[in-house]
């Protein structure tokens, strides 16, 4: 029978199928961080169980950490304790841990691919919903709860029911000033935040396969915002060349063998899906959200379709030229080197607006180093910006980077829920280019109306 790439990966990881129940699914890679793992480790201890396959779990701290002065001890005790616990737990159980300041530290979904721990055709989980990011390499990757983190630590397996399959095709050529973030915000605005519930998505089509790995990760990252378990993209030469030579990628003959196998991994021509959608790349415009879920998005120059009290927006008004107080470039959605390139390229030769607070937060130390290596740091500082240290930062406001009550923030992250960036904070989700334009002009600006630097 013909199979989708999802079927192929799923089927090859089934240890056992329970009649009228879930399957025991084998997990290849497991990422953990400080917020959702402590209770899992205490659970193991209570049961007196050891970590089953410590070499398949990798740990980083990212959610709680400050994004300045990382060389100092974490001041806030409630943030420091979970980080210390993670150090303790990983040491005790022999799990590789990238602590603060380690050259491989960063946001969990940024470092996994950077280090080549995330490869192709794998099952990957983490106690974090945006684990879907790793689907960009052709993996079944999804977020799990803490009880499930405990299960994976104890048995390298999970009990899972097979989701339904959705195909989303995006064909055609993207317009200027439009990026991957705009594609996914466009899709979610059309289909809604629960359209993916119960599904695993495969993204395909010419507009998707022409994207870089960074851009593919942005798309898969936000598949969870449609409610989907995850999203994936079939691997190709772009995938292989990204992974080649990474620290944990296979080497030499093993690499050749792996690529041969990975090349086979795609959906059969006549494979069936439960639901299919088609989008045209030409229809995608620079996007922005006006409400409190990621589905409430629109082209940046349109009018607000419904009044939203929390955001302080009325039906019929335009958001362009609205005053912005904060800009956040970062997170596992847009905290990669390409996002910094796009932002830096836009602000080059311009000056930061005086009355906007701008947080530029690289997703990892590797991104931070690359920014300097490529000279982007000088460009950014020259335009009046400072670069912070890696972490989740204002994406979820668990550290000091919180947006104050009623302040507007253009954020390149993935969620605009009430209070997500701090109590009362008003979040407008957008891509790095819209963020850069707001940082320069202090207002919501359509990047198409600005002459752009030729890179």
């Amino acid at each position: 029978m013909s199979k989708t790439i999802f079927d192929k990966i799923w089927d090859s990881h089934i240890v056992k199928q329970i009649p009228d129940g879930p399957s025991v699914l084998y997990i290849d890679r497991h990422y953990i961080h400080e917020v959702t793992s402590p209770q899992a480790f205490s659970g193991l201890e209570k049961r007196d169980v050891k970590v089953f396959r410590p070499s398949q779990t990798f740990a980083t701290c990212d959610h709680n950490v400050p994004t300045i002065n990382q060389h100092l001890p974490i001041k806030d005790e409630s943030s420091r304790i979970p980080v210390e616990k993670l150090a303790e737990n990983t040491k005790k159980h022999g799990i590789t841990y990238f602590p603060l300041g380690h050259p491989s530290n960063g946001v969990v979904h940024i470092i996994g691919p950077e280090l080549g721990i995330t490869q192709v055709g794998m099952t990957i989980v983490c106690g974090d919903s945006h684990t879907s990011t790793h689907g960009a390499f052709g993996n079944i990757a999804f977020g799990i709860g803490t009880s499930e983190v405990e299960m994976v630590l104890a048995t390298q397996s999970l009990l899972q029911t097979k989701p339904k399959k959705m195909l989303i095709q995006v064909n055609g050529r993207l317009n200027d000033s439009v990026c991957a973030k705009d594609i996914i915000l466009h899709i979610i605005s059309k289909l809604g935040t629960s359209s993916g519930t119960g599904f695993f998505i495969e993204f395909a089509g010419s507009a998707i396969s022409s994207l870089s790995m960074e851009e593919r990760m942005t798309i898969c990252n936000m598949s969870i915002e449609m409610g989907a378990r995850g999203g994936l993209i079939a691997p190709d030469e772009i995938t292989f060349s990204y992974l080649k030579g990474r620290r944990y990628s296979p080497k030499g003959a093993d690499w050749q063998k792996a690529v041969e196998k990975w090349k086979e991994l795609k959906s059969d021509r006549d494979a069936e899906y439960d639901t299919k959608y088609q989008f045209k790349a030409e229809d995608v415009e620079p996007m922005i959200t006006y409400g409190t879920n990621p589905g409430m998005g629109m082209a940046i120059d349109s009018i607000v379709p419904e009044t939203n009290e929390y955001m302080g927006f009325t039906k019929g008004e335009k958001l362009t030229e609205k005053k912005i107080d904060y800009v956040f470039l970062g997170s596992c959605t847009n905290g990669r080197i390409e996002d910094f390139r796009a932002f830096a390229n836009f602000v080059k030769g311009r000056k930061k607006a005086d009355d906007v607070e701008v947080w530029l937060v690289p997703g990892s130390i590797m991104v931070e180093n690359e920014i300097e290596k490529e000279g982007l740091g000088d460009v950014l500082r020259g335009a009046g910006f400072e670069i912070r240290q890696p972490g989740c930062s204002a994406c979820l406001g668990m550290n000091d980077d919180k947006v104050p009550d009623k302040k507007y923030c253009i954020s390149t992250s993935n969620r605009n829920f009430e209070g997500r960036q701090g109590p009362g904070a008003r979040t407008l989700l957008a891509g790095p280019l819209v963020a850069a334009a707001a940082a320069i002009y202090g207002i919501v600006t359509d990047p198409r109306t600005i002459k752009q630097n030729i890179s």
Partner: protein
Amino acid sequence: MSFSKFTILESKPVLMPAENIDTDQIIPARFLKTTTRKGFGENLFHDWMYSKNGEKNPEFILNKENGKGKILVAGRNFGCGSSREHAAWAIYDHGFRAVVSSFFADIFRNNALNNGLLPVQVSPEFLQKIFETGESSLVVNLPEKTIKISSTGDCEYFEINTYKQDCLINGYDDIDFLLSNKDAIEKFEQNR
């Protein structure tokens, strides 16, 4: 984690008709810093429970007289957003044992089931009926997979797979089952 066994539950419902109640509303990220599973109930729906000056908001359902009960009934797409299991812990810790909605987010549903909190997915029409009937008590019968509105007698089946049903009725969790399958898992690893 051990939780109490679930068979038949009768309680007044606590009605929250809002749709898309996300995990950041159920428990805001700033309350996720403790390293145990206890005490999250205090911060359930924190930003709705309390006004900005820290006083209880008398308008919020859980602060009202009719906000006491073991069954939470909410609008569609309940529990969307993050994978934080703290959301399920907080609801359970507050005293709820079942959540009724016409649609649940996937990760929330799994987290709830792993913690003895039963997600009961009903049709949009039935959900509407519960909201209209108001405070009449509900009876959730897990062995029979039914939910009934006591005063009107309206009844509907809900779905749950046999495996999960058994787990809840007996108070088992997945980890016990997985640990008992270690041999099969090792064999799988060897045959890859």
